[in-house]
């Protein structure tokens, strides 16, 4: 029997900041098309894991493979070029530009040969693609508005849309619904998943709202103190004693 091909393989990842152990032998394999949610209390090591996978910080030990190829120690740019993109807990956008221009920059960088010294930035084909991308996320109405004027939820969606412009193999969403009102969380996740629909995109997302976790994830990985304490389906993980004790906080 041939082994299951993994999109992402993290093997015994470790990261220390002085005396603080942010990641302690974290191993995780993610198959194509999986939607994995990382849960854990603040400081559990979720964002450290995301930062190591996307090259923002280098692991102190262990290895990371993408489609079987080593990416450990590469920087964010090289990792993005290999098909791993991310959104941020605090959306990282170009505030002085319009929403459409943000997408246009992302598309220009993503399309081979689109970066030019003389060809106009507002290429008709790329503009059409940018509008289509905004429409996928329900943001077409904000196309010409400067990002600095957009509400938080719209910025979150735009951040994710930018990450998708490269047609990645793997996308990591760091708390996609944080800072969004309870009423809007579900519609926001629906919008994101609809926008990704049909791409068989492998997704890792960090989330604190357990209703969102149980609704949208097909696998949950729980972190505590830099370690993975549970890994399985939402139904299995959310009833785990350790998860109840250290993560969800209802250990009765």
């Amino acid at each position, binding site marked *: 029997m041939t082994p299951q091909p993994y999109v992402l393989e993290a093997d015994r990842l470790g990261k220390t900041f002085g005396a603080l152990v942010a990641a302690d032998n974290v191993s995780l394999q993610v198959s194509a098309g999986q939607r994995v949610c990382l849960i854990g209390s603040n400081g559990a090591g979720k964002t450290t894991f995301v930062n190591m996978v*996307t090259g923002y910080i280098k692991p102190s030990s262990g290895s990371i493979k993408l489609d079987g190829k080593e990416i450990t120690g590469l*920087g*964010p*740019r090289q990792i*993005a*070029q290999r098909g791993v*993109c*991310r959104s941020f807990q605090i959306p*990282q*956008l*170009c*505030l*002085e*530009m*319009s929403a*459409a*221009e*943000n997408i*246009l*920059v*992302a598309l*220009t*960088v*993503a399309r081979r040969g*689109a*970066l*030019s*010294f*003389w*060809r*106009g*930035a*507002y*290429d*008709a084909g790329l*503009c*059409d693609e*940018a*509008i*289509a991308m*905004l*429409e996928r996320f*329900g943001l*077409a*109405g904000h*196309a*010409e508005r400067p990002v600095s004027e957009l509400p938080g939820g719209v910025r979150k969606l735009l951040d994710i849309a*930018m*990450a998708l*412009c*490269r047609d990645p193999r793997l996308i990591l969403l760091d708390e996609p619904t944080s800072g969004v009102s309870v009423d809007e969380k579900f519609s926001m996740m629906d919008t994101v998943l609809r926008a990704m629909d049909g791409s068989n995109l492998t997704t890792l997302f960090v989330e604190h709202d357990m209703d969102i976790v149980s609704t949208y994830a097909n696998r949950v990985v729980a972190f505590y103190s830099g370690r993975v304490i549970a890994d399985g389906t939402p139904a299995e993980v959310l009833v785990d004693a350790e998860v109840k004790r250290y993560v969800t906080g209802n250990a009765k």
Partner: protein
Amino acid sequence: MTRSLQTTILYAAALAVLLLVGLMLPQWLLFLLTMAASHGVVGLGLIVMMRGGVVSFGQGLVFAIGGYVAGLAATRYGITDAVVLVLLGCFASALAGAIAGPLLARYRSIFFAMLTLALSMVLYGILVKSSGVGGSDGFNVPRPSMLGLTINETNADYAFFALSSAIATLLTLLVTIYCRSSRGLLSMAIRDNELRVEYLGTSVRAAMAINFVIAAALGGAGGALTVISLGHIDPNFSYWTTSGEFVFMAILAGHASAPAVFLASLLLELVRSFSNKYFPDTWQLALGLFLLLIILFLPKGVGSLWAKPERLPRQAAEKAQAAAARQRAATEAAQ
């Protein structure tokens, strides 16, 4: 007609008008305009860097390299054609920029500014101590020819005015096209959020280094043009006050419009000339007050008076509006 072609025609027409008007101007004003155009070319380079979010306080470095290379080519190697001298100055400074650029591209804000300043002052120190290039006195540069035509005493002022105006117009056109290009947009994105650009999968450092090389090439061309028109070069080309004037000019112009830098350069030359004449000991005070007023009332520079921010082309904007209308209709139908 493409936008670049429209801009080319507009700039060519502006140059033609300028050259015609130049025929009627007095010598002192021609010289002032020549200096404004030559220094404005250096300011163009600063604008390219400012669009990426950094300001060099050491453009005197590339200004001096371009000037010295042009001067030495004329005096030591007998190269007499002004256009060739400008090209040599431009390439020499671009080469220096290509060496220093990758190092400087690692730094931002005050660190970038101070490193560029340090490099320009290192060159100043070397030039002052180098008797082979005239030490602190510098050396004179013979009057060049232009495209095979001899320039004599009577037509020199107009010839240098025409040369600097033509080269400045050409370089402004190229910078305008660059600023409107996808790489130009990338520079603006870097200025706004480097982290996001890096995560999109492109090298911020490479983009910054490219901007530095472009600015260096422009600085070298400006230095060569200045030397040709002045007929003299000395280490002050690389001194920090010279670099400071270029920064002054760039702040005055803002980065919204490339041609604005020539208006800023002209204003600077006028303030310098008249202040020097009427209150020679305190003319820097006038300059300082002038800059203060600009920062207070036109924080984005004089270019912001006429340059509108780039917008989506009309067709794309219409498509966005249509898409938004479709979304609204779908939402209403769902309710």
